[in-house]
């Protein structure tokens, strides 16, 4: 057994030494290439670096190698090869920004032709929120004005999104979120002393679209956005209790009912918010605070007093329940993760500006 251990140890050491030798060799190659460049012997540099570029260089070494190649091709007056080398440099490090204080000025000017800004940036989020009904018409089965008290209920949200980046700061964004939103009302004053408690529970698919501005430098990058959302109400139910207060005690009647048929499926809202991104490596974590102000009446006013089969709604006599005409606002706090998909490329005109371009009139010789 001891012999086998020794044998495998020797094999491992041999492989390790070989890889280290290769690393050491490529580093030596890089130094040699640098020396050749400084000595003005340019023609041999690509051949010298290519083997390690294909296999052997780390990302950091690749950046140094491609920087040497870029300068070499610029001096040899081969702009296509220079462009290609710089593009490969950005492929190794998408966040490389040429600096005139550090890099040769011709490389700096060359770098202005390129961008690595991701065209699309996916992200996902998860968070919690609270909701509040914005009453359009306060409806009830009572002939008197009732006392209403709202109680906050915690909801949750989770989803995915993608940013379409116009430039380093501006993006047009879309998301698909699944959320649970709830609120509770305690209403007193029915028949003088009786009261009602109703918890409204809803499930949604929210599809917001918004224009976002975010900072493009630093480890902590604030952002803000404003836009619009389609809100698809997929499920709606209530838990209700009516308490008959008598002089000799209280008697509650409680139950739960699905009321999805009393609500509108398609709704819309204004969405705005902001937060900050924290850079970790090439990716980001973010914290987002969002307010979604409902624009549409959630209640289907044609079904206020009807059961699902179109008859008299027993909720009216069981719990004195008839829903208000209302919109719903939501405030949420989420954390998320952004994984930019870098795409080194030559710069073109922003796609959004194409919307402003008129089609050229066709000219046909008679």
């Amino acid at each position, binding site marked *: 057994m001891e012999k086998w251990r020794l044998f495998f140890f020797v094999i491992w050491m041999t492989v390790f030494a070989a890889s280290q030798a290769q690393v050491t060799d490529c580093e030596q190659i890089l130094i040699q290439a640098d020396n050749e460049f400084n000595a003005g012997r340019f023609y041999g540099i690509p051949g010298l670096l290519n083997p390690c570029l294909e296999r052997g260089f780390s990302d950091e070494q690749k950046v140094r190698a491609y920087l040497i190649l870029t300068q070499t091709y610029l001096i040899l007056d081969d702009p296509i090869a220079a462009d290609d080398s710089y593009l490969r440099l950005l492929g190794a490090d998408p966040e490389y920004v040429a600096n005139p204080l550090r890099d040769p000025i011709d490389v700096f000017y060359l770098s202005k032709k390129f961008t690595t800004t991701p065209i699309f940036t996916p992200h996902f989020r998860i968070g919690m929120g609270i909701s509040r009904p914005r009453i359009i018409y306060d409806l009830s*089965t009572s002939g*008197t*004005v009732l006392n209403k008290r709202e109680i906050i209920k915690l909801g949750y949200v989770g989803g995915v999104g993608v940013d379409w980046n116009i430039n380093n700061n501006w993006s047009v964004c879309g998301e698909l979120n699944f959320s649970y939103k709830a609120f509770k009302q305690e209403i007193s004053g029915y028949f003088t002393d009786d009261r009602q408690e109703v918890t409204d529970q809803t499930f949604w698919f929210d599809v917001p679209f918004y224009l976002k501005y975010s900072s493009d430098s630093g480890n902590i990058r604030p952002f803000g956005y404003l836009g619009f959302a389609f809100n698809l109400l997929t499920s709606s139910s209530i838990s209700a209790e009516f308490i*008959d207060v008598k002089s000799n005690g209280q008697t509650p009647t409680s139950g739960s009912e699905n009321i999805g048929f009393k609500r509108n499926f398609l709704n819309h809202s204004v969405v705005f918010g902001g937060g900050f991104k924290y850079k970790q490596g090439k990716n980001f974590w973010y914290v987002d605070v969002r307010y979604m102000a409902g*624009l549409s009446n959630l209640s289907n006013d044609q079904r*206020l007093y009807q059961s699902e089969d179109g008859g008299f709604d027993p909720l009216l*006599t069981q719990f004195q329940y008839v829903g208000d005409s209302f919109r719903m606002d939501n405030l949420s706090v989420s954390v998320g993760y952004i994984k930019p998909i870098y795409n080194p490329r030559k710069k073109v005109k922003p796609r959004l500006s194409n919307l402003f371009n008129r089609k050229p009139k066709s000219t046909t010789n008679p």
Partner: protein
Amino acid sequence: MRYVRAILFLLSFSACDTDQNTLNPNEKFFVKFYGDEGNHEGVDLLLNDDGSIILLGNSTRTNSTQQIFVLKVDPQGMIIWSRTYGTPLNENAKDIEVLPDGRLLVVGEIEVGPANKDVFAMTISQASGDSLQWIQVGLKNFLNQDTNEEVNSVSLIQGGFIVAGTTTALITETPGPNDIRDGMHLRFTNNLEWIDGSTGVWKNVTGLNNSDDVIQKIIEISPNEYYGFGYTNTDFNGDGQEYNFWVFSLGFSGVPSGSGLYLGRSTEDEILTSVEISPPEAGAGFLLSGITTRSGEVLSYIVKLQNELNFDSEDILDEGNPTSLGVANALIPPITKSIELRQSGFMLLSNVNALSRNQATNFSLSRLTNRLLVNAGNAPIEIGGDGNDFAANLKELPDGRILVMATMTLGRGGENTDQTKMVLMKLNNAGKLAD
């Protein structure tokens, strides 16, 4: 242009639903329950020209006698004022009208003792709900004993009003075995002064020979002529004693004149429960509504009579049994009310026995054609919760929508949580709670 279209498309979704651009649902439909602690019953309703509504009912609080319950609500059903009136005795409000000077007039019965109810009438200020005047009248029989009066309606006449119903103060000293009750028509001035029958100015009671006679309503045609509507089991044609609708005429002193008209099948008992005057737009006339029982099944029975009665079969414009009200059950009040609609057709409100479907008593609304038939596209609409619910009355609003008053049981039926409340519903012209 694409840019403009894109902006307009987005702006179309930015519109916000508010009370400025969204109709209040209560303008079209509502369901409102009224009352406080205890049980409340809906009886009748009035429409004012300004759109406000007067509601009449009865109220019984825990450890208390039954009282009169009156509310005034706005066109959306919100209470303007709500009051309870009465004495330490049980009162049972039956009808409400508006006097020419705007005062509300409420009539009903007051339970003085066992099998001894008197008639009461009271006036209320419509502005404040304050009680103004009260009168209580009890008849006596030939033995000077207190008798039992039951009120069915009040009708306004020139200078006063007539309270119609029944009494056990029979007109004959020697009643037959079937002479249980006679029809009552007490006359009052607008100042709540009773015109005592003993003065000879006005006769209080009308009855047929050896029969149970009930007067539902008296309608003034002129100071010298009044039409009476009710039901009786008098054997008018030798076929035996079964109940029929009974239409007759009274002279200027309340004395019957001429023969009467009896409506219904000879083998069935027709019970009249309401009389309405058809609106001029629908063709003037009298609409009589009630029930009949055929082979154990309760059916509605509706008759429209022409405006000027000859008290013969020529008076009948339409007649029918449009709806079934379920299996006969003595516990279900035979409430059937119908109105003729201004545009066309009729609306029928009635109690329905839903016990066979393991449900409680409900009430139903039926939109009938001009020929008193159920329209194929408008099946009767049954309304009710888990407990027992009873119809009271209905009115047509100027815009064609329907107001229904009823009594509904809150809770889940059968539980000791249940309480009854007066309910007012605003429905569309088909009797539905949605368009």
